[in-house]
């Protein structure tokens, strides 16, 4: 049996697993978390499962009752996917499984190195899998631009607010400001609101005119998407949010940004300001708002480490390049979901289904994936429309002050980064990182990397130099997640139990 390994159990990974099984392949589904669902379908742990979820298990209602509905979008779909995979003997689900490295082996099949056990544990079990096909569905995380005070406790990414609301039922504060850019701000506000906190405002940096240009230049297309059952739900969802926002009287302001957070050791207030169409703050429009938490998201950064480690080419927009099958530039590796473009859960489901089917040996022309292919085509423009409507404006750097931290791990300020680059006259990413330490800390540049790169590119342009001269990329992290020395030193002696994805003659293989 052809063995397909899927990394990431969010919408794309779950759809891929389902499709690969339907096409007859054996599947191993890995996720670093101890639950399936990814960030999108994050939910309360079994020990304290949500009441509506319990009810929904037996209910034919497609959505849980009011209040939970917006927290758990398309929840019934998730439960159906999960239940089918869990009941399937040929689908091995391995949660709490962190892939920490991928090696490229001589025969073209990737060797996927994993650790099973509690996150950041000390004695996690190391193993290595060499599947016939690998599907990467590793998703994305918030991109939060630096602003003065963004390192104060009480400043959260939008994803944190959602995770704490969905997975913990923890309110991040009492008076909460939501800010940044993108349609994701609305579910963030909704999540925060569902925890009983007062959302004192949602501040979207893009101007109304740009939002209209991004979303509404093709109203006929919008309508078509809204009409498309299931696959078009993304936009229906947005309309739902907008309605809810109005109902709840959460102020939604466009063309405004949080330009500073204030407080000693914790957020006590934020400054919001009007920004111009390039996101540069308009002087004289600053207004201070009392708040004890602020949730900020300016977009998303794809989690590309594994794809890069596997040797997959990126496209010019720096997402994983895939063909119609969902196949990357490496023939044995497929990709689906946000690492191929920020398209939302419906696009991820469609891409996952196609990639899973093709990775199992099927064809994109097969009737089994016709619906997914249609849905994917309908949603294809979504990412570029989000970018057009909400893409980061270059003027954001105007809200930085010299003391603003750029690299949170290493406490590198905007001034220090600039001084270091200016003193050394360096424009290469490696040199600037190593002489300023920006991006060298424990997050390995996941938070500041793209920001450092952009600030550096500005300097390079000023010097007439092309970006990326030294070939370095902030997205390149061969060690994908920290591993204890004792775990790294362990000999991997045998394949782990359960249906092995490795069916090749040389299996079970040891370390490569």
């Amino acid at each position, binding site marked *: 049996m052809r063995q397909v390994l899927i990394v990431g159990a969010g919408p794309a990974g779950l759809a891929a697993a389902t499709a690969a099984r339907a096409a007859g392949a054996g599947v191993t589904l890995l996720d670093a978390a101890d639950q399936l669902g990814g960030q999108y379908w994050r939910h309360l742990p079994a020990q304290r499962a949500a009441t509506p979820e319990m009810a929904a298990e037996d209910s034919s209602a497609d959505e849980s009752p009011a209040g939970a509905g917006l927290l758990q979008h398309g929840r019934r779909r998730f439960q159906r996917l999960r239940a089918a995979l869990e009941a399937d003997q040929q689908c091995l689900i391995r949660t709490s499984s962190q892939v920490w*490295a*991928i*090696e*490229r082996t001589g025969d073209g099949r990737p*060797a996927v*190195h994993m650790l099973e056990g509690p996150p*950041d544990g*000390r004695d996690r079990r190391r193993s*290595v899998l060499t599947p016939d096909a690998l599907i990467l569905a590793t998703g994305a995380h918030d991109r939060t631009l630096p602003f003065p005070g963004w390192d104060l406790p009480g400043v959260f990414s939008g994803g944190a607010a959602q995770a704490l609301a969905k997975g913990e039922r923890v309110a991040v504060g009492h008076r909460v400001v939501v800010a940044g850019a993108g349609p994701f701000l609305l579910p963030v506000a909704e999540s925060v609101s569902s925890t009983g906190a007062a959302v004192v405002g949602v501040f979207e940096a893009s101007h109304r005119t740009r939002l209209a240009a991004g979303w509404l230049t093709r109203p006929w297309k919008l309508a078509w998407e809204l009409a498309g059952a299931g696959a078009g739900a993304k936009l229906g969802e947005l309309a739902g949010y907008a309605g809810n926002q109005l109902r709840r009287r959460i102020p939604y302001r466009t063309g405004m940004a949080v330009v500073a957070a204030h407080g000693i050791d914790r957020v006590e207030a934020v400054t919001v300001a009007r920004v111009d169409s390039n996101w540069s703050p308009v002087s004289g429009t600053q207004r201070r708002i009392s708040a004890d938490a602020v949730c900020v998201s300016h977009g998303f950064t794809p989690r590309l480490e594994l794809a890069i*480690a596997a*040797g997959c080419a990126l496209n010019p927009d720096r997402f994983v390049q895939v063909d119609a099958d969902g196949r990357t530039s490496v023939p044995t590796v497929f990709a689906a979901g946000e690492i191929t473009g920020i398209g939302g859960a419906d696009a991820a489901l469609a891409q996952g289904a196609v990639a899973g089917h093709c990775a199992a040996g099927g064809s994109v022309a097969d009737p089994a994936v016709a619906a997914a292919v249609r849905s994917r085509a309908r949603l294809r423009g979504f990412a570029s429309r989000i970018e057009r409507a909400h893409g980061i404006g270059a003027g954001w750097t105007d809200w930085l002050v010299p003391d603003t931290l750029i690299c949170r791990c*290493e406490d590198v300020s905007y001034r220090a980064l600039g*001084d*270091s680059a200016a*003193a*050394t*006259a*360096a*424009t*290469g*990413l*490696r*040199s600037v990182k*190593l*002489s*300023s*330490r920006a991006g*060298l*800390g*424990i997050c*390995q540049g996941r938070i500041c990397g793209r920001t450092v790169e952009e600030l550096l590119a500005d300097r390079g342009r000023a010097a007439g*130099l*092309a970006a990326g*001269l*030294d*070939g*370095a990329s902030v997205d390149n*992290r*061969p*060690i994908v997640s*920290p*591993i*204890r*020395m*004792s775990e*790294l*030193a*362990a*000999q991997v002696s045998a394949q782990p139990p359960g249906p092995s994805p490795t069916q090749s003659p040389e299996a079970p293989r040891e*370390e*490569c």
Partner: protein
Amino acid sequence: MSGDVCPDVVVIGAGVVGAACARALSMAGLTVTVLDRGATAGGTTAAGEGNLLVSDKAPGDELRLAQFSLGLWPGLVDQAVAELGPDFPSIEYHRKGGLVVATAAAGAGPLLAFAAVQAAAGVDATPISPAAALRLEPDLNPAVAAAVHYPQDAQVQPVIAAQAMLALARRRGAEVRQGAAVTGPLLGAGGRLTGVMTNRGPMSCGAVVLAAGPWSGEVAATLRVRLPVRPRRGMVLVTTRMPQRVFHKVYDADYVGAVESGEANLQTSSVVESTAAGTVLIGSSRQQIGFDSRLRVEVLRELAAKAIALFPFLAGASVMRAYGGFRPFMPDHLPVIGADHRLPGLFHATGHEGAGIGLSTGTAELVTAAVTGAESPIDAAAFLADRPTLRPYLAAA
């Protein structure tokens, strides 16, 4: 690119060796242009540990160069502080000393014998008792069979050191051009090298210094000269920040054998040290696999296992990064420094393998003497490209 001005010297390569040459040449009053096809200090220089070592070198020509080079570093650091000011990042020069330990009884004899011949060659190599080693490094594995302390071993942050040397050269009129790749020679009367063709046009000069590290062989080929420099891959692990528990450059005695070896197969030995940022660096592997930058987990595994054998507490440390670099490997284990006997006008400053950071300062003085015709500060004949041990490799192909 203002290619109209003809510098005295073009230095190819803006890594630590090219930077050191640019500084020394410009301090000698020559006008210098440094070309790099990429960015400054972005190749091998950015992928090393910043070792300034005498402890790993057997008596011989490389040790002489290392001793000479080591003596030049404090002056460089003082000059950088004085001229570049407090805003320039610190070179992080730290004469922390090396501690070489034999973790198996069988290794004790060879280690002590090696230290004795080094001491005879002027290296400060002091055998110390296991108890004394544990006083220097309280978290060292107590099962130490023998230990030698090398107080002269030092460490720098290599990228900042290279940038400082470039900045010092710039203050003396040197120009650094990034994104400028050499594509061919400009040849004058009698076949003399009178400049280089670059992707941005021709550049005439009085002399060309080739300091392109592991890529020197490629660049030499574009200049129609054969130079047997090959890449040897080295990997280093970096832990997350932790309270400091490693105070010297600590390595197992196997390291010396690996450095001296010409084996193409993977060799690892443990070198453990902490950095000014609070991280611990764990090196280092040596493997001849061409310019293949793919991760090899077995290499990392061996490094981790050997480091834990030296410092058991490291078992619980987290590795957050692994970086690999290509070292310029020479078949006879000596750098190539000085005038090329086949192409007048071409000077070499390459082939330092894993020792280029430390050897950069001395190399630059030898190159400057060769270019200006001054007397060499140390006997440099052993480093010339036409030395007997290298001749067979120059003839091939």
